[in-house]
Protein backbone atom coordinates (compact mmCIF):
# COMPACT_ATOMS: atom_id res chain seq x y z
CA UNK A 1 0.00 0.00 0.00
CA UNK A 2 1.10 3.57 -0.74
CA UNK A 3 2.36 4.93 2.54
CA UNK A 4 2.90 8.44 3.75
CA UNK A 5 6.47 7.45 4.39
CA UNK A 6 7.01 6.93 0.68
CA UNK A 7 6.18 10.57 0.02
CA UNK A 8 8.18 11.90 2.96
CA UNK A 9 11.30 10.03 2.04
CA UNK A 10 11.17 10.53 -1.72
CA UNK A 11 11.83 14.08 -2.97
CA UNK A 12 10.54 13.27 -6.45
CA UNK A 13 7.16 12.05 -5.22
CA UNK A 14 6.92 14.95 -2.80
CA UNK A 15 7.47 17.51 -5.58
CA UNK A 16 5.01 15.86 -7.97
CA UNK A 17 2.24 15.46 -5.40
CA UNK A 18 2.75 18.96 -3.96
CA UNK A 19 2.45 20.45 -7.45
CA UNK A 20 -0.67 18.41 -8.05
CA UNK A 21 -2.32 19.65 -4.84
CA UNK A 22 -1.41 23.28 -5.58
CA UNK A 23 -2.54 22.79 -9.18
CA UNK A 24 -6.05 21.79 -8.13
CA UNK A 25 -6.29 24.70 -5.69
CA UNK A 26 -4.95 27.06 -8.32
CA UNK A 27 -7.43 25.91 -10.97
CA UNK A 28 -10.36 26.40 -8.65
CA UNK A 29 -9.15 29.89 -7.81
CA UNK A 30 -7.93 30.98 -11.23
CA UNK A 31 -10.35 29.48 -13.76
CA UNK A 32 -13.37 31.46 -12.47
CA UNK A 33 -11.40 34.67 -13.05
CA UNK A 34 -11.54 33.96 -16.77
CA UNK A 35 -15.32 33.82 -16.53
CA UNK A 36 -15.59 36.96 -14.45
CA UNK A 37 -17.33 38.81 -17.28
CA UNK A 38 -20.28 36.51 -16.81
CA UNK A 39 -20.19 36.89 -13.04
CA UNK A 40 -20.23 40.68 -12.91
CA UNK A 41 -23.77 41.84 -13.58
CA UNK A 42 -24.26 44.27 -16.43
CA UNK A 43 -25.98 47.21 -14.79
CA UNK A 44 -26.17 50.89 -15.58
CA UNK A 45 -24.88 53.58 -13.31
CA UNK A 46 -21.83 52.07 -11.62
CA UNK A 47 -18.92 54.47 -12.02
CA UNK A 48 -15.52 55.02 -10.40
CA UNK A 49 -15.47 57.42 -7.44
CA UNK A 50 -15.02 61.14 -7.98
CA UNK A 51 -11.77 62.62 -6.60
CA UNK A 52 -13.52 63.81 -3.42
CA UNK A 53 -15.29 60.48 -2.85
CA UNK A 54 -12.03 58.64 -3.50
CA UNK A 55 -10.25 60.72 -0.84
CA UNK A 56 -13.15 59.96 1.49
CA UNK A 57 -12.68 56.30 0.79
CA UNK A 58 -8.98 56.62 1.64
CA UNK A 59 -9.95 58.18 4.97
CA UNK A 60 -12.50 55.42 5.54
CA UNK A 61 -9.67 52.93 5.15
CA UNK A 62 -7.20 55.03 7.18
CA UNK A 63 -9.56 55.22 10.13
CA UNK A 64 -10.17 51.49 9.94
CA UNK A 65 -13.93 51.73 9.47
CA UNK A 66 -13.80 48.33 7.77
CA UNK A 67 -12.77 46.67 11.01
CA UNK A 68 -16.32 47.09 12.30
CA UNK A 69 -18.43 47.77 9.18
CA UNK A 70 -18.94 45.51 6.19
CA UNK A 71 -20.11 46.69 2.78
CA UNK A 72 -21.81 43.57 1.58
CA UNK A 73 -25.50 42.86 1.88
CA UNK A 74 -25.87 39.12 1.53
CA UNK A 75 -28.79 37.59 -0.38
CA UNK A 76 -30.92 36.70 2.64
CA UNK A 77 -34.43 37.85 3.45
CA UNK A 78 -33.52 39.41 6.81
CA UNK A 79 -30.64 41.40 5.31
CA UNK A 80 -32.72 42.54 2.36
CA UNK A 81 -35.46 43.77 4.69
CA UNK A 82 -33.05 45.62 6.92
CA UNK A 83 -30.50 47.07 4.53
CA UNK A 84 -32.03 47.00 1.05
CA UNK A 85 -31.16 45.12 -2.11
CA UNK A 86 -28.31 42.63 -1.83
CA UNK A 87 -24.94 43.82 -3.10
CA UNK A 88 -23.94 43.05 -6.66
CA UNK A 89 -20.46 42.16 -7.83
CA UNK A 90 -20.81 45.05 -10.28
CA UNK A 91 -21.12 47.56 -7.46
CA UNK A 92 -17.59 46.99 -6.21
CA UNK A 93 -15.92 46.57 -9.59
CA UNK A 94 -13.98 49.84 -9.16
CA UNK A 95 -13.09 49.26 -5.50
CA UNK A 96 -9.41 48.55 -4.87
CA UNK A 97 -9.47 46.91 -2.43
CA UNK A 98 -13.15 46.09 -2.03
CA UNK A 99 -14.65 46.67 1.43
CA UNK A 100 -16.96 43.63 1.60
CA UNK A 101 -15.68 42.38 4.92
CA UNK A 102 -17.35 39.87 7.19
CA UNK A 103 -16.99 41.58 10.54
CA UNK A 104 -20.07 43.45 11.65
CA UNK A 105 -19.62 45.13 14.97
CA UNK A 106 -21.51 48.05 13.48
CA UNK A 107 -24.17 47.78 10.78
CA UNK A 108 -23.48 47.07 7.13
CA UNK A 109 -22.84 50.25 5.14
CA UNK A 110 -23.30 49.02 1.56
CA UNK A 111 -26.51 51.06 1.06
CA UNK A 112 -25.82 53.92 3.44
CA UNK A 113 -25.86 56.61 0.73
CA UNK A 114 -28.86 58.95 0.97
CA UNK A 115 -30.22 57.24 4.07
CA UNK A 116 -29.33 60.06 6.46
CA UNK A 117 -28.65 63.76 6.02
CA UNK A 118 -25.14 65.21 5.82
CA UNK A 119 -25.74 66.95 9.16
CA UNK A 120 -26.53 63.60 10.75
CA UNK A 121 -23.30 62.07 9.44
CA UNK A 122 -21.21 64.97 10.76
CA UNK A 123 -22.90 64.82 14.16
CA UNK A 124 -22.64 61.04 14.28
CA UNK A 125 -18.95 60.90 13.32
CA UNK A 126 -17.99 63.57 15.84
CA UNK A 127 -20.12 62.17 18.69
CA UNK A 128 -21.91 58.92 17.81
CA UNK A 129 -23.70 58.59 21.14
CA UNK A 130 -25.40 61.96 20.75
CA UNK A 131 -27.62 60.40 18.08
CA UNK A 132 -27.37 56.67 18.77
CA UNK A 133 -27.21 56.31 22.57
CA UNK A 134 -26.36 52.60 22.55
CA UNK A 135 -23.53 52.97 20.01
CA UNK A 136 -20.01 51.83 20.86
CA UNK A 137 -18.41 53.58 17.89
CA UNK A 138 -15.43 55.82 18.75
CA UNK A 139 -15.59 59.59 18.26
CA UNK A 140 -13.80 61.01 15.22
CA UNK A 141 -13.73 64.74 16.05
CA UNK A 142 -10.53 65.45 14.12
CA UNK A 143 -12.26 64.82 10.79
CA UNK A 144 -13.99 68.15 11.19
CA UNK A 145 -10.79 69.98 12.13
CA UNK A 146 -8.23 68.45 9.78
CA UNK A 147 -8.01 70.01 6.36
CA UNK A 148 -8.09 67.50 3.55
CA UNK A 149 -4.73 66.93 1.91
CA UNK A 150 -5.50 67.27 -1.77
CA UNK A 151 -1.95 67.73 -3.04
CA UNK A 152 -1.55 64.15 -4.24
CA UNK A 153 -5.01 63.43 -5.62
CA UNK A 154 -3.76 62.98 -9.22
CA UNK A 155 -1.11 60.51 -8.09
CA UNK A 156 -3.72 58.54 -6.19
CA UNK A 157 -5.92 58.40 -9.28
CA UNK A 158 -2.98 57.38 -11.45
CA UNK A 159 -2.21 54.53 -9.06
CA UNK A 160 -5.81 53.34 -9.27
CA UNK A 161 -5.67 53.64 -13.05
CA UNK A 162 -2.73 51.24 -13.03
CA UNK A 163 -4.92 48.56 -11.44
CA UNK A 164 -7.72 49.10 -13.92
CA UNK A 165 -9.96 51.94 -12.73
CA UNK A 166 -10.88 53.93 -15.85
CA UNK A 167 -9.70 57.39 -14.82
CA UNK A 168 -8.60 59.27 -17.92
CA UNK A 169 -5.36 61.05 -18.74
CA UNK A 170 -5.38 61.27 -22.52
CA UNK A 171 -8.01 62.61 -24.89
CA UNK A 172 -8.70 59.09 -26.17
CA UNK A 173 -9.31 57.78 -22.65
CA UNK A 174 -11.55 60.73 -21.90
CA UNK A 175 -13.61 60.08 -25.03
CA UNK A 176 -13.94 56.43 -24.08
CA UNK A 177 -15.27 57.52 -20.69
CA UNK A 178 -17.77 59.88 -22.31
CA UNK A 179 -18.97 56.93 -24.35
CA UNK A 180 -19.19 54.68 -21.30
CA UNK A 181 -20.39 56.95 -18.50
CA UNK A 182 -21.69 60.11 -20.20
CA UNK A 183 -20.13 63.56 -20.33
CA UNK A 184 -20.72 64.70 -16.72
CA UNK A 185 -19.22 61.61 -15.14
CA UNK A 186 -16.34 61.52 -17.63
CA UNK A 187 -15.39 65.06 -16.58
CA UNK A 188 -15.16 63.92 -12.95
CA UNK A 189 -12.90 61.01 -13.92
CA UNK A 190 -10.38 63.24 -15.70
CA UNK A 191 -7.10 63.11 -13.80
CA UNK A 192 -6.00 66.44 -15.32
CA UNK A 193 -8.93 68.20 -13.65
CA UNK A 194 -8.81 66.21 -10.41
CA UNK A 195 -7.97 69.08 -8.07
CA UNK A 196 -10.52 71.53 -9.44
CA UNK A 197 -13.20 68.81 -9.54
CA UNK A 198 -12.50 67.90 -5.95
CA UNK A 199 -12.71 71.49 -4.75
CA UNK A 200 -15.86 72.17 -6.77
CA UNK A 201 -17.67 69.11 -5.40
CA UNK A 202 -16.65 69.87 -1.82
CA UNK A 203 -17.86 73.46 -2.11
CA UNK A 204 -21.16 72.79 -3.83
CA UNK A 205 -21.91 69.77 -1.64
CA UNK A 206 -20.75 71.45 1.58
CA UNK A 207 -20.91 68.08 3.31
CA UNK A 208 -19.48 69.22 6.65
CA UNK A 209 -21.65 72.35 6.93
CA UNK A 210 -18.62 74.62 6.84
CA UNK A 211 -18.10 76.43 3.55
CA UNK A 212 -14.71 77.95 4.24
CA UNK A 213 -12.53 74.82 4.46
CA UNK A 214 -12.37 71.48 2.76
CA UNK A 215 -12.00 69.08 5.65
CA UNK A 216 -11.57 65.34 5.84
CA UNK A 217 -15.20 65.29 6.95
CA UNK A 218 -16.25 66.69 3.55
CA UNK A 219 -14.51 63.82 1.79
CA UNK A 220 -15.71 61.05 4.10
CA UNK A 221 -19.35 62.17 4.08
CA UNK A 222 -19.26 62.56 0.28
CA UNK A 223 -18.07 58.96 0.10
CA UNK A 224 -20.63 57.65 2.59
CA UNK A 225 -23.43 59.41 0.72
CA UNK A 226 -22.64 57.65 -2.56
CA UNK A 227 -22.44 54.14 -1.12
CA UNK A 228 -24.89 51.81 -2.81
CA UNK A 229 -26.71 54.56 -4.69
CA UNK A 230 -25.33 54.01 -8.18
CA UNK A 231 -27.67 51.27 -9.38
CA UNK A 232 -31.37 52.02 -9.82
CA UNK A 233 -32.97 48.72 -8.85
CA UNK A 234 -36.42 49.74 -10.01
CA UNK A 235 -35.12 49.29 -13.56
CA UNK A 236 -34.38 45.59 -13.17
CA UNK A 237 -36.41 42.46 -12.63
CA UNK A 238 -35.02 40.23 -9.87
CA UNK A 239 -34.89 37.46 -12.45
CA UNK A 240 -32.18 39.39 -14.26
CA UNK A 241 -29.80 39.14 -11.31
CA UNK A 242 -30.67 35.48 -10.64
CA UNK A 243 -29.55 34.69 -14.19
CA UNK A 244 -26.00 35.71 -13.34
CA UNK A 245 -25.78 32.77 -10.94
Amino acid sequence: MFKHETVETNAGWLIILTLLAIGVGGLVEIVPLYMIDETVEKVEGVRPYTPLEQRGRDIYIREGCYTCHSQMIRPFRDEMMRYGHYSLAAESQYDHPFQWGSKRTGPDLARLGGKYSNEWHVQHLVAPRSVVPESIMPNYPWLLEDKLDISDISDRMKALKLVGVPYSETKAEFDANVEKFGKDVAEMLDINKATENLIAQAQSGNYDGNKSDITEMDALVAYLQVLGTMVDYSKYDEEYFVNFR
Partner: protein
Amino acid sequence: MSEQKHTEGSVQTTGHAWDGDLQEFNNPLPRWWVWAFYATVIFAIVYWIIYPSWPMGGSYLKGVMNTITYENDKGEEVTTHWNTRALLAYDMKNSDAAVRQSEYLEKVTNASYSQIAQDPEMMAFTRSYAKGLFGDNCAACHQQGGVGVIGKYPNLVDDSWLYGGTYVNIEQSIQNGRRGNMPNFESLSDKQKDDLSEYVLSLSGHEVNRNKAQSGAKVFQANCVACHGADAEGNTAIGAANLTDRIWTVADVPGASNLEAKKVAIKQVINNGISRHMPAWSGRLSGDEIKLLTVYVHSLGGGQ
Protein backbone atom coordinates in the same frame (compact mmCIF):
# COMPACT_ATOMS: atom_id res chain seq x y z
CA MET B 1 18.11 4.16 11.73
CA SER B 2 15.45 2.02 10.13
CA GLU B 3 16.71 -1.05 11.91
CA GLN B 4 15.35 0.39 15.21
CA LYS B 5 11.84 0.34 13.76
CA HIS B 6 10.35 -2.68 15.41
CA THR B 7 12.37 -2.77 18.57
CA GLU B 8 9.99 -1.03 21.00
CA GLY B 9 7.57 -3.80 21.76
CA SER B 10 4.41 -3.77 19.65
CA VAL B 11 4.38 0.00 19.03
CA GLN B 12 5.88 1.20 15.75
CA THR B 13 8.16 4.22 15.77
CA THR B 14 9.18 6.41 12.86
CA GLY B 15 12.71 5.25 13.34
CA HIS B 16 14.07 8.67 14.28
CA ALA B 17 15.84 9.09 17.61
CA TRP B 18 16.81 12.40 19.13
CA ASP B 19 19.03 12.97 22.15
CA GLY B 20 19.76 9.27 22.18
CA ASP B 21 16.38 7.87 23.18
CA LEU B 22 13.66 10.38 22.24
CA GLN B 23 11.52 8.59 19.63
CA GLU B 24 8.38 9.30 17.67
CA PHE B 25 5.57 6.73 17.62
CA ASN B 26 4.10 5.82 14.30
CA ASN B 27 0.64 4.73 15.43
CA PRO B 28 -2.07 4.20 12.85
CA LEU B 29 -4.83 6.82 12.80
CA PRO B 30 -7.81 5.91 14.98
CA ARG B 31 -10.31 3.86 13.04
CA TRP B 32 -13.23 6.23 13.79
CA TRP B 33 -11.21 9.17 12.50
CA VAL B 34 -10.37 7.44 9.24
CA TRP B 35 -14.01 6.55 8.65
CA ALA B 36 -15.12 10.07 9.48
CA PHE B 37 -12.59 11.35 6.97
CA TYR B 38 -13.91 9.03 4.24
CA ALA B 39 -17.44 10.14 5.13
CA THR B 40 -16.56 13.81 4.54
CA VAL B 41 -15.04 12.86 1.18
CA ILE B 42 -18.24 11.07 0.19
CA PHE B 43 -20.30 14.02 1.48
CA ALA B 44 -18.23 16.37 -0.66
CA ILE B 45 -18.87 14.32 -3.79
CA VAL B 46 -22.62 14.20 -3.12
CA TYR B 47 -22.53 17.95 -2.48
CA TRP B 48 -20.74 18.60 -5.78
CA ILE B 49 -23.41 16.68 -7.61
CA ILE B 50 -26.39 18.39 -5.98
CA TYR B 51 -25.14 21.96 -5.57
CA PRO B 52 -23.34 24.31 -7.98
CA SER B 53 -19.66 23.43 -7.75
CA TRP B 54 -16.78 23.00 -10.17
CA PRO B 55 -15.94 25.47 -12.93
CA MET B 56 -16.26 23.81 -16.34
CA GLY B 57 -14.87 25.78 -19.25
CA GLY B 58 -17.08 28.82 -19.71
CA SER B 59 -19.63 27.62 -17.19
CA TYR B 60 -19.82 25.45 -14.08
CA LEU B 61 -21.56 22.36 -12.74
CA LYS B 62 -25.00 23.62 -11.73
CA GLY B 63 -26.09 20.68 -9.66
CA VAL B 64 -28.68 18.03 -10.54
CA MET B 65 -32.01 17.12 -8.91
CA ASN B 66 -32.00 20.45 -7.13
CA THR B 67 -33.99 23.31 -8.60
CA ILE B 68 -35.76 26.32 -7.18
CA THR B 69 -39.03 27.67 -8.48
CA TYR B 70 -39.68 31.29 -7.63
CA GLU B 71 -41.92 34.07 -8.78
CA ASN B 72 -40.29 36.85 -10.78
CA ASP B 73 -41.43 40.49 -10.60
CA LYS B 74 -44.04 39.91 -13.30
CA GLY B 75 -45.57 37.12 -11.24
CA GLU B 76 -44.42 34.37 -13.60
CA GLU B 77 -42.96 31.17 -12.19
CA VAL B 78 -39.33 30.61 -13.06
CA THR B 79 -37.42 27.42 -12.35
CA THR B 80 -33.66 27.52 -12.13
CA HIS B 81 -30.74 25.56 -10.75
CA TRP B 82 -30.15 26.00 -7.04
CA ASN B 83 -28.49 29.33 -6.17
CA THR B 84 -28.71 31.78 -3.32
CA ARG B 85 -30.28 34.55 -5.38
CA ALA B 86 -33.13 32.35 -6.58
CA LEU B 87 -33.55 31.06 -3.03
CA LEU B 88 -33.83 34.64 -1.82
CA ALA B 89 -36.38 35.49 -4.53
CA TYR B 90 -38.36 32.48 -3.32
CA ASP B 91 -37.96 33.48 0.33
CA MET B 92 -39.13 37.02 -0.32
CA LYS B 93 -42.39 35.95 -1.95
CA ASN B 94 -43.18 32.30 -1.34
CA SER B 95 -41.64 31.26 1.96
CA ASP B 96 -43.98 30.50 4.88
CA ALA B 97 -43.10 33.70 6.66
CA ALA B 98 -43.52 35.83 3.54
CA VAL B 99 -46.86 34.23 2.65
CA ARG B 100 -48.25 34.70 6.14
CA GLN B 101 -47.00 38.27 6.24
CA SER B 102 -48.44 39.02 2.81
CA GLU B 103 -51.97 38.21 4.01
CA TYR B 104 -51.73 41.04 6.50
CA LEU B 105 -49.83 43.30 4.15
CA GLU B 106 -52.54 42.89 1.53
CA LYS B 107 -55.20 43.77 4.06
CA VAL B 108 -53.32 46.88 5.14
CA THR B 109 -52.56 47.93 1.55
CA ASN B 110 -56.23 47.80 0.63
CA ALA B 111 -57.47 49.55 3.75
CA SER B 112 -57.70 53.29 4.24
CA TYR B 113 -55.81 54.95 7.06
CA SER B 114 -58.88 55.33 9.23
CA GLN B 115 -59.87 51.69 8.63
CA ILE B 116 -56.43 50.55 9.80
CA ALA B 117 -56.62 52.74 12.89
CA GLN B 118 -60.00 51.28 13.86
CA ASP B 119 -59.05 47.64 13.33
CA PRO B 120 -57.12 46.25 16.33
CA GLU B 121 -55.71 43.35 14.33
CA MET B 122 -54.32 45.54 11.55
CA MET B 123 -52.98 48.00 14.13
CA ALA B 124 -51.20 45.22 16.00
CA PHE B 125 -49.59 44.04 12.75
CA THR B 126 -48.65 47.59 11.80
CA ARG B 127 -47.08 48.29 15.18
CA SER B 128 -44.93 45.19 15.18
CA TYR B 129 -43.87 45.52 11.54
CA ALA B 130 -43.29 49.28 11.58
CA LYS B 131 -41.42 49.19 14.86
CA GLY B 132 -38.66 47.30 13.09
CA LEU B 133 -38.77 49.66 10.11
CA PHE B 134 -38.62 52.65 12.42
CA GLY B 135 -35.67 51.19 14.29
CA ASP B 136 -33.76 50.38 11.09
CA ASN B 137 -34.46 53.61 9.27
CA CYS B 138 -35.80 56.42 11.43
CA ALA B 139 -34.43 55.95 14.93
CA ALA B 140 -30.91 57.07 14.01
CA CYS B 141 -32.27 60.63 13.88
CA HIS B 142 -35.69 60.63 15.55
CA GLN B 143 -34.45 58.25 18.27
CA GLN B 144 -36.05 55.10 19.58
CA GLY B 145 -39.70 55.81 20.25
CA GLY B 146 -39.58 59.01 18.21
CA VAL B 147 -38.56 61.46 20.92
CA GLY B 148 -36.11 63.27 18.64
CA VAL B 149 -33.10 65.40 19.54
CA ILE B 150 -33.97 68.96 20.40
CA GLY B 151 -32.40 71.39 17.95
CA LYS B 152 -31.75 68.69 15.38
CA TYR B 153 -34.37 66.04 14.78
CA PRO B 154 -38.04 66.75 15.48
CA ASN B 155 -39.93 64.95 18.19
CA LEU B 156 -42.66 62.73 16.72
CA VAL B 157 -44.61 61.95 19.88
CA ASP B 158 -45.83 65.42 20.83
CA ASP B 159 -48.76 67.34 19.36
CA SER B 160 -46.71 69.86 17.45
CA TRP B 161 -46.05 69.17 13.78
CA LEU B 162 -43.79 71.28 11.59
CA TYR B 163 -45.30 69.88 8.39
CA GLY B 164 -48.65 68.75 9.71
CA GLY B 165 -49.65 65.62 11.56
CA THR B 166 -52.37 64.13 9.38
CA TYR B 167 -51.83 60.78 7.67
CA VAL B 168 -51.36 62.51 4.34
CA ASN B 169 -48.85 65.00 5.76
CA ILE B 170 -46.82 62.28 7.45
CA GLU B 171 -46.87 60.11 4.35
CA GLN B 172 -45.60 63.02 2.26
CA SER B 173 -42.82 63.76 4.75
CA ILE B 174 -41.62 60.18 4.61
CA GLN B 175 -42.01 59.81 0.88
CA ASN B 176 -40.33 62.99 -0.30
CA GLY B 177 -38.29 64.01 2.70
CA ARG B 178 -38.20 67.59 3.95
CA ARG B 179 -35.82 70.48 3.71
CA GLY B 180 -36.31 72.90 6.55
CA ASN B 181 -34.62 76.24 6.20
CA MET B 182 -34.75 79.41 8.27
CA PRO B 183 -32.39 82.14 7.08
CA ASN B 184 -30.20 83.84 9.65
CA PHE B 185 -31.10 87.33 10.89
CA GLU B 186 -27.58 88.31 11.80
CA SER B 187 -28.15 91.76 10.32
CA LEU B 188 -30.57 92.77 13.09
CA SER B 189 -29.02 94.95 15.77
CA ASP B 190 -28.24 93.47 19.17
CA LYS B 191 -31.11 95.42 20.71
CA GLN B 192 -33.52 94.19 18.07
CA LYS B 193 -32.47 90.59 18.65
CA ASP B 194 -32.84 91.03 22.39
CA ASP B 195 -36.32 92.56 22.07
CA LEU B 196 -37.32 89.93 19.55
CA SER B 197 -36.28 87.09 21.85
CA GLU B 198 -38.35 88.67 24.67
CA TYR B 199 -41.34 88.88 22.36
CA VAL B 200 -40.96 85.27 21.15
CA LEU B 201 -40.82 84.07 24.76
CA SER B 202 -43.91 86.11 25.62
CA LEU B 203 -45.81 84.26 22.89
CA SER B 204 -45.60 81.02 24.82
CA GLY B 205 -46.59 82.61 28.09
CA HIS B 206 -43.21 83.35 29.62
CA GLU B 207 -43.01 86.30 32.02
CA VAL B 208 -40.95 88.91 30.16
CA ASN B 209 -40.20 92.60 30.14
CA ARG B 210 -43.32 94.14 28.53
CA ASN B 211 -41.61 97.16 26.99
CA LYS B 212 -38.95 95.09 25.35
CA ALA B 213 -41.51 92.58 24.12
CA GLN B 214 -43.58 95.39 22.62
CA SER B 215 -40.70 96.69 20.54
CA GLY B 216 -39.81 93.07 19.76
CA ALA B 217 -43.29 92.64 18.31
CA LYS B 218 -42.45 95.29 15.73
CA VAL B 219 -39.25 93.47 14.75
CA PHE B 220 -41.31 90.30 14.47
CA GLN B 221 -43.89 91.98 12.22
CA ALA B 222 -41.13 93.25 9.96
CA ASN B 223 -39.06 90.08 9.68
CA CYS B 224 -40.78 86.92 10.84
CA VAL B 225 -44.46 86.96 9.86
CA ALA B 226 -43.80 85.86 6.29
CA CYS B 227 -43.09 82.35 7.54
CA HIS B 228 -44.26 82.14 11.15
CA GLY B 229 -47.48 84.07 10.42
CA ALA B 230 -48.92 87.20 12.02
CA ASP B 231 -50.28 85.10 14.90
CA ALA B 232 -46.89 83.28 15.16
CA GLU B 233 -48.62 79.94 14.87
CA GLY B 234 -46.33 78.83 12.08
CA ASN B 235 -47.06 77.41 8.67
CA THR B 236 -47.10 73.69 8.02
CA ALA B 237 -46.82 74.23 4.26
CA ILE B 238 -43.21 75.36 4.66
CA GLY B 239 -42.40 73.81 8.00
CA ALA B 240 -42.33 77.07 9.97
CA ALA B 241 -42.64 76.34 13.66
CA ASN B 242 -45.53 77.38 15.87
CA LEU B 243 -43.99 79.78 18.40
CA THR B 244 -47.04 80.12 20.62
CA ASP B 245 -46.97 76.66 22.19
CA ARG B 246 -44.51 75.36 24.74
CA ILE B 247 -42.98 72.87 22.33
CA TRP B 248 -39.61 73.83 20.89
CA THR B 249 -37.87 72.01 18.09
CA VAL B 250 -34.78 74.13 17.47
CA ALA B 251 -34.01 76.43 20.42
CA ASP B 252 -33.60 74.45 23.62
CA VAL B 253 -35.85 76.72 25.67
CA PRO B 254 -37.20 74.04 28.03
CA GLY B 255 -33.63 72.96 28.80
CA ALA B 256 -32.54 76.48 29.81
CA SER B 257 -32.82 77.14 33.51
CA ASN B 258 -33.59 80.88 33.57
CA LEU B 259 -35.00 83.57 31.32
CA GLU B 260 -31.58 84.83 30.32
CA ALA B 261 -30.50 81.39 29.14
CA LYS B 262 -33.78 80.93 27.27
CA LYS B 263 -33.14 84.20 25.47
CA VAL B 264 -29.63 83.09 24.57
CA ALA B 265 -31.04 79.90 23.05
CA ILE B 266 -33.51 81.87 20.94
CA LYS B 267 -30.97 84.48 19.91
CA GLN B 268 -28.70 81.71 18.70
CA VAL B 269 -31.37 80.59 16.24
CA ILE B 270 -32.03 84.17 15.14
CA ASN B 271 -28.31 84.65 14.58
CA ASN B 272 -27.51 81.42 12.78
CA GLY B 273 -30.77 80.43 11.17
CA ILE B 274 -31.33 76.73 10.77
CA SER B 275 -31.04 74.30 7.93
CA ARG B 276 -32.27 70.75 8.34
CA HIS B 277 -32.74 67.98 5.87
CA MET B 278 -34.71 64.78 6.05
CA PRO B 279 -33.91 62.44 3.14
CA ALA B 280 -36.65 61.10 0.86
CA TRP B 281 -37.56 57.47 1.51
CA SER B 282 -39.61 56.65 -1.55
CA GLY B 283 -36.65 55.06 -3.36
CA ARG B 284 -35.55 53.05 -0.34
CA LEU B 285 -38.80 51.87 1.22
CA SER B 286 -41.73 50.31 -0.63
CA GLY B 287 -45.16 51.93 -0.74
CA ASP B 288 -46.44 49.38 1.79
CA GLU B 289 -43.58 50.09 4.16
CA ILE B 290 -44.18 53.83 3.97
CA LYS B 291 -47.87 53.30 4.66
CA LEU B 292 -47.11 51.18 7.72
CA LEU B 293 -44.60 53.72 8.97
CA THR B 294 -47.13 56.52 8.46
CA VAL B 295 -49.67 54.74 10.64
CA TYR B 296 -46.99 53.97 13.20
CA VAL B 297 -45.69 57.54 13.43
CA HIS B 298 -49.26 58.85 13.55
CA SER B 299 -49.97 56.48 16.44
CA LEU B 300 -46.90 57.51 18.44
CA GLY B 301 -48.96 60.14 20.16
CA GLY B 302 -49.61 63.29 18.23
CA GLY B 303 -51.35 62.21 15.03
CA GLN B 304 -54.10 64.53 13.85
